[in-house]
């Protein structure tokens, strides 16, 4: 529970993957944000699923 109450205590420090507008809006609302230049893995969802199984 410490981690849960901890995240509520102050503006979050956010890694944003996906819509750029969320990075802009979260930053203007007081969060610290690093936006990721995300792109789909070559090979599509099947490769992403395989990478997920390999990822620890």
């Amino acid at each position, binding site marked *: 529970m410490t981690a849960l109450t901890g995240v509520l205590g102050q503006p979050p420090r956010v890694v944003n993957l996906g819509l750029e507008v969320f990075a802009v809006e979260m930053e203007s609302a007081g969060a610290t944000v690093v936006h990721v230049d995300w792109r*789909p893995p070559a090979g599509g969802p099947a490769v992403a699923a395989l990478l997920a199984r390999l990822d620890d």
Partner: protein
Amino acid sequence: MPLRAVVRRSSYRDSMVLMRVAEAVRVLPGVREAAVLMGTPANHELLASAGLATTETKDAAPGDLMIAVLADTESAAEAGLAEAERVLAERRASVEPAGRSLPRTLDGALRQMPDANLAAISVPGEYAAFEAQRALRRGLHVFLFSDNVTLEDEIALKRLAVERGLLCMGPDCGTAYIGGVGLGFANVVPRGRVGCVAASGTGLQAVVARLAALGEGVSHAIGVGGRDLSAEVGGAMTVPALEALAADATTEIIVVIGKPAAPEIVPRLETAIARIAKPVVVCCLGATPAGSAAGRWVSTLEDAAELALATLRGQTWSPRMFTDPADVRARLPRARGPRGTILGLYTGGTLAHEAGLVLAPLVGADAYRLVDLGGDEFTRGRPHPMIDPSARAAHVRQAGESGDVGVLLVDLVLGRAVHPDPATPLAEAIYDARRAAAARGRELGVVASVVGTDGDPQDLRRQTATLQAAGVEVLPSNAQAARFAALLIRPDLDRSLLGS
């Protein structure tokens, strides 16, 4: 007519950026049509059907960006391509820190910000679970906006989050407020004493916007995703979220918001609520308590906000049909006239669901139909209707040509990251639908509610005025709008809804 296209190799941009770029190009003088799309098979079909496919675009891969401009002259087409490049660069600059390139992966981002504590994920659904799993394994809380994530993946992600003592907000989590920061589609609301646990993004927006209108703010709002209270997911995030707000010093009252909890989950929810020393208001639309006295259960989002505030202020409270019955009585004579059924065209799924709960007992199932344009089936491969109003506008125009629709019932949701001016395209579609209906000798009534605050970037008053100028009856809440729609087609309901 000149058609020019370019392909930017390995240059992925999100669907919302691409939509805004295309909009910027289409308004240029001499430009007839423009498309800015990733090279997926579906988008190649779209490009071909619009007559915008060229030799340049034909071999674009899903990771390649296709820009095509059809214009009156070569120079207008060239200007269109240049404008697309300019807007793409401008958008990128808004998220790129000066002098540093953007990381390509979550791990790259964590090297730049090792103390990050939350990942906000809105990538296409088929990739979202992978990214969320990676973030949880790195010890980050997750705000998972993406939809089209499988139930199995959701269960696995939430199990992982619980094991690690982390929040997995979503999938399909539209809105949250964490540490004073709105995530996703978030209305601009003050900090305050009300904590929310929400299995519904638009439901949460409706509650916090109503609270803001009444002068109260939000401590935190933890989204859990629309399926959290299903039998399969079992409230996996709702229970820890309740516990977190129970322990949070700034939260004085908790509101639980969602579509109906599965009957077998209700006792679990009640047990969790019974352990909390703070007052808890529950609005699980359509669900009733299993029997314990845990929490106070209400039947509409508006009631949830009003009961929470009354509790904080030590006031008694009872539900009302309309905030201002006299105003409704005054408006009815000029609004009445349409004959036929009610068609609800919603961008907020929970608002659509709430409308159904209000309408069913009033007019019966045959007298209304509700469409949630934010549902998975409408958002695959395209932006949410709160970002891109065109899908709903098309449905509104169709309604004008439908023989049996007498009243349109709509929501208009404002907030950060939402379309900058959603009322205007909706109002334009309403004008067209009304004209089409009139040409067929019919009258089409339109009833709306607006979810927004005075702090929202779209300007709540201007959005409301735009709808009213289009002849829309705007009510203070979604439930009231549904009741008003019922009154338009069923004058015999006056007594039960207005007490006269």
